[in-house]
């Protein structure tokens, strides 16, 4: 079931995303942490594979990743369009809240 709180402000601040929630909670999460936690099936599968020390990086992996856009998905989630074209992860509000660390 959905949560009673929703974000009221979502703002990019350099290498992190600032989130202010309807219950007064203010927090942030880095874009790197968001990409590492991408909930799409492809990324989940990547994370579950054992690390390969001999893996050769692809050219697009050598460039630092950045978010190009973060459109809303209905009333329950956001998706992130990354600079490498990846955009299939749907971040539900509950997931974003879980990743959100309180602002210092």
């Amino acid at each position: 079931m959905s949560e009673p709180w929703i974000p009221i402000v979502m703002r990019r601040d350099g290498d992190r995303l600032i989130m202010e929630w309807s219950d007064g909670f203010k927090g942030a999460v880095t874009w790197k942490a968001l990409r590492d936690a991408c909930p799409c099936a492809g990324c989940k599968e990547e994370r579950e594979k054992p690390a390969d020390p001999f893996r050769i990086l692809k050219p697009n992996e050598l460039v630092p990743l950045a978010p190009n856009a973060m459109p809303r998905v209905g009333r329950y989630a956001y998706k992130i369009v990354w600079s490498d074209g990846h955009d299939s992860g749907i971040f539900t509000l509950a997931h974003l809240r879980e990743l959100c660390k309180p602002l210092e």
Partner: protein
Amino acid sequence: MQPHGGPAPKISLPNIKYVVAVASGKGGVGKSTVAANLALALARSGAKVGLMDADIYGPSVPIMFGVPCPIDQQTTPLPLERYGIKLMSMGFVVPPERAVIWRGPMVDRALRQFLTELPWGTLDYLIMDLPPGTGDAQLTLSQHAPLTGAVIVTTPQDVSLVDARKGLAMFSEVRVPILGIVENMSYFVGDDGKRYEIFRHGGGKKLAGLAGVPFLGDIPIDPRVAECGDGGEPMVARYPDSPVSKAYAALVNTVREQLEAIGGAELPEVQM
């Protein structure tokens, strides 16, 4: 990590005040009948109304509104207009004997086209008749269409209520506001004036109480509803003074109250 094409944009319908999904967890509860008659009752109250049949695999709107299909799109522009409401259905463009055998992404594309490429004009209400269940059509519309809220249709018996609960859970998960529950085929009024509860009674109200959502009303069963549906003239249009039509008029009021109460709680845009 797999790169993909650009994101599917959220559909904007600035000329439509309220977009209402009529849904149920289960087939056969009279969802299309409720959607059609609710749309007509809204139109009879003076509102500008559209009805979009989002059931791509089993469209009901053509038969319910007496539209011979497929229509000739060269001479008949879509959406069609019948009884003062604008209509769109996959059934208008596919011959009745042909099955639409599509995977989810094609359904997604068709629904987007219905919403974005048809001249709906300015509407007070766009009613969407959803297919039963919690699948592709529901997900597409809840993710991309600006749904104001959903009406869940059930019949009184437990087997329907179990599935209605699933519909409620789905809309709750995707944060589409639930306007409330309608109990269809709730009772029968005999010639003797007595009320007979054929499929039991009160299940919809009980479910609404358990789920903490409004109970919008109950619609009586009447054999003329089926006769009107098959005859291409919905009950509210043909027998406007019947108890069923009066129940729909009452439903219009409760749906309106809920729509005005919920307002719009859209998520904020991310400032990049």
